[in-house]
């Protein structure tokens, strides 16, 4: 890896690692994301500037876990670094996984290896959140992580405001799945809910291994909640959780509302689950229906995707995946083809910006070179209606 050929870079092939959970509940979304990215790359001729670009899959999940896996995430990080031609990583899907990788990627011997995520919403990756964050992810002193989606401090807050203002909720019981992302978004929700005058009855973890949640729901019932917030991902036995919520606390359209974050969006299983009906969901961006109705590159890509694969992807994160790819391609295009070069395109000078015409999100985008965060902050409220996520309203943010 030392003898990197710096000079003559014409036609050199560079690799973008695509690090997603290709197994378990998120598998469909990951597969669709990868396919959409490949589709987009093919459409633009597989090149970024002078460089030929290839995608390489990395699976950060295991069949055994049925979702992302600590050990696999850490191992992938090493593999990314060891793959000499890889200049950037697109991913990961789950914030917890990203937090295990960024530190390693950042210390790659030949310069920090850039990661751009389309789905990590946990704030700590780019801004102060838990002790030591985000500095602890960047031991080399240079930032190397960016994302094209908003963060949970906003998402949680939006959900709390929606619950209070639109749903008139008074007492909310907050659950989290005990993972990085789930705890974060649950905390953000609980903090804002308290500010909004909602009584937060508890913020406690649900056990993904439990056979059922009847006793837990009884507890929520006897606490008198009129709202249950699920901070976490559907993968963690979310189906059973929702079923037991309905069995004990009644319909989601009834007295006790059920609210979830983006971790419950895009799962076909959940959409098919009868008990899911009426659940409110937030999404830390624009959902597919909005992107489609906005027209432009995004909606064209979705149409092409549907033409090629028979149906549109279930998750809105698929387009965000392509958006992350666009950011990486832009960085590669401007760079000298080395890891260091690619990364510094994002985190120095003006950073990366993509015009509304080019961006699949259809907005003028800019990655803040100081933090790696994106300038647009969209938040959508959705509701599970007859087996599909239906857009309810956007939630304006400060």
């Amino acid at each position, binding site marked *: 890896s030392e003898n990197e050929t710096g000079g003559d870079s014409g036609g050199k092939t560079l690799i973008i690692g695509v690090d997603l959970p290709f197994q378990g509940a998120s598998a469909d979304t990951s597969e669709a994301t990868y396919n959409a990215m490949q589709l987009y790359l093919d459409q633009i001729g597989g090149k970024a500037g002078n460089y030929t670009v290839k995608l390489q899959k990395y699976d950060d999940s295991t*069949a055994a876990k049925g979702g992302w896996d600590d050990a696999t995430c850490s191992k992938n990080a*090493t593999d990314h670094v060891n793959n000499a031609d890889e200049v950037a990583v697109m991913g990961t899907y789950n914030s917890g996984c990203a937090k295990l990788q960024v530190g390693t990627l950042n210390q790659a011997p030949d310069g920090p290896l850039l990661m751009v995520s389309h789905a990590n919403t946990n704030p700590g990756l780019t801004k102060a959140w838990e002790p030591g964050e985000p500095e602890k992810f960047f031991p080399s002193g240079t930032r190397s992580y960016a994302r094209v989606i908003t963060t949970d401090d906003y998402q949680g807050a939006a959900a709390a405001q929606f619950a209070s203002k639109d749903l008139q909720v008074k007492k909310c019981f907050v659950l989290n799945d005990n993972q990085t992302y789930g705890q974060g978004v649950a905390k953000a929700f609980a903090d804002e809910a308290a500010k909004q005058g909602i009584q937060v009855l508890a913020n406690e973890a649900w056990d993904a291994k439990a056979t059922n949640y009847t006793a837990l729901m009884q507890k929520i019932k006897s606490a008198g909640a009129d709202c249950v917030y699920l901070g976490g991902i559907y993968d963690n036995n979310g189906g059973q959780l929702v079923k037991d919520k309905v069995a004990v606390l009644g319909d989601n359209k009834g007295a006790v509302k059920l609210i979830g974050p983006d971790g419950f969006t895009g799962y076909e299983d959940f959409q098919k689950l009868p008990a899911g009906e009426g659940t409110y969901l937030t999404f830390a961006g624009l959902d597919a229906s909005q992107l489609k109705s906005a027209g432009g590159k995004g909606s064209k890509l979705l149409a092409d995707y549907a033409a090629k694969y028979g149906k549109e992807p279930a998750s809105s994160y698929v387009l965000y995946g392509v958006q992350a790819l666009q950011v990486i391609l832009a960085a590669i295009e401007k760079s000298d083809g080395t890891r260091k070069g690619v990364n510094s395109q994002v985190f120095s000078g003006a950073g990366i910006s993509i015009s509304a015409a080019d961006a699949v999100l259809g907005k003028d985008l800019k990655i803040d070179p100081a933090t790696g965060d994106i300038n647009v902050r969209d938040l959508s409220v959705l509701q599970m209606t007859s087996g599909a996520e239906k857009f309810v309203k956007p939630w304006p943010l400060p």
Partner: protein
Amino acid sequence: MSSETMSVVPPTRRRFALPHSARWPLGFAIAALALFALYYFVYYGPVDPDFKAWVQRWLSIASMNESLVWIMCALGLNIVVGYAGLLDLGFVAFWAIGGYTVGWLMSAFFQQVDINILGTAPAGQRGIHINFWIVLVIAGALCALMGVFIGAPTLRLRSDYLALVTLGFGEIIPQLFYNGDNFLQTGFNLTNGTKGILPVDPVEAAAFDKSGVGFRNLGVFDHLSKYVIFVFLVVIIVFVSLRLREGRLGRAWLAIREDELAASAMGVPLMRTKLSAYAVGAIAGGFGGAAFAIHINGVLPDRFKFDISIILLAMVVLGGMGNVWGVILGAFAISWVNSTGLPQAGNAFNESFGTNIDFPSFNFLLFGAVLVLMMLFRREGILPEARTRLVLREPGRTEAESLGADMEAQAPELEALPDVEVAGEATTDEGKRS
């Protein structure tokens, strides 16, 4: 040397022959050194990039280091199960404790305090920063203590129950770590929960790189230097295992494995002897845990699951209970297949046949099948100790008589099978003993 002796072959040969007991240690040393040389050249020598890629793919140093961690823990379990015959299904607890010791004492996690004992953290960082080598000793001690703590109330139990209770501890302790961000609902953050404690401080040790050997803090990518540390730890554990087995304690362990009641009537204090097996095994587990923490540069509770205990047990059994060399082989084989063999073979297969089979998901099948087939056809492991072979092959006559067990004769059904292999082994076994 006179010409007559020259003509006689055997004496000349004997001059080069190794004592039997030195064969395996020497083999191990050669393998370890050869690997070191290989990695050194792959990383820092002028090697063909294809070869480098090949090594990285099939025998990457990171997975080698992980194998070494498995080996340490398997060796620890071997003392408990293989030597003392105490079935422990919760060994993962020690691995976890060893890991967290590093997490606690070598990171910025405890922001409340500022302790630095020969630590390697960047100046000004709060937390507890103690030198790895001290922490290693602490981890061993803590695990030994935990071993005694776990053992004391439970070692009186019959073997099955002991298995269950250790299993219980193997579930409880990781769960306490897992939920330790709000330890027992007290609000105290003991372990940072699922998010784990990372990164941990670098280890200060001999570093091997392009420029040769130096003494400095190791970085995330100093795999080779960590390899040296891990091999060193394995050597210590092997050495202690071998020495203990020979002595008074090893005999007492064996006696307990054979017949607890008779052992106690012969003056062997049961509790103390069993506890010592637990403690010594736990220390090895603690070393493994500490090594693992510096290998992955942190600790994450998710790794410490029940299956780890089972896999460790499988390693011990596959390799040959009671024989450290067998256990090393077994542990290496299983961890290599899990981390590298299966996925890479799968990739190779998928690439060349254009299929899309998810090979790693077959590891359940592979793993299960290996266990079952081993038990059916080679119960004593790949590299059995003569004694263990007998334990698992054909229980003795006295046992059958005194316990009224069902193990007296070979099953008539089996008698009917032409069992050539068994015959061959039995003779070699006889040969070895004499």
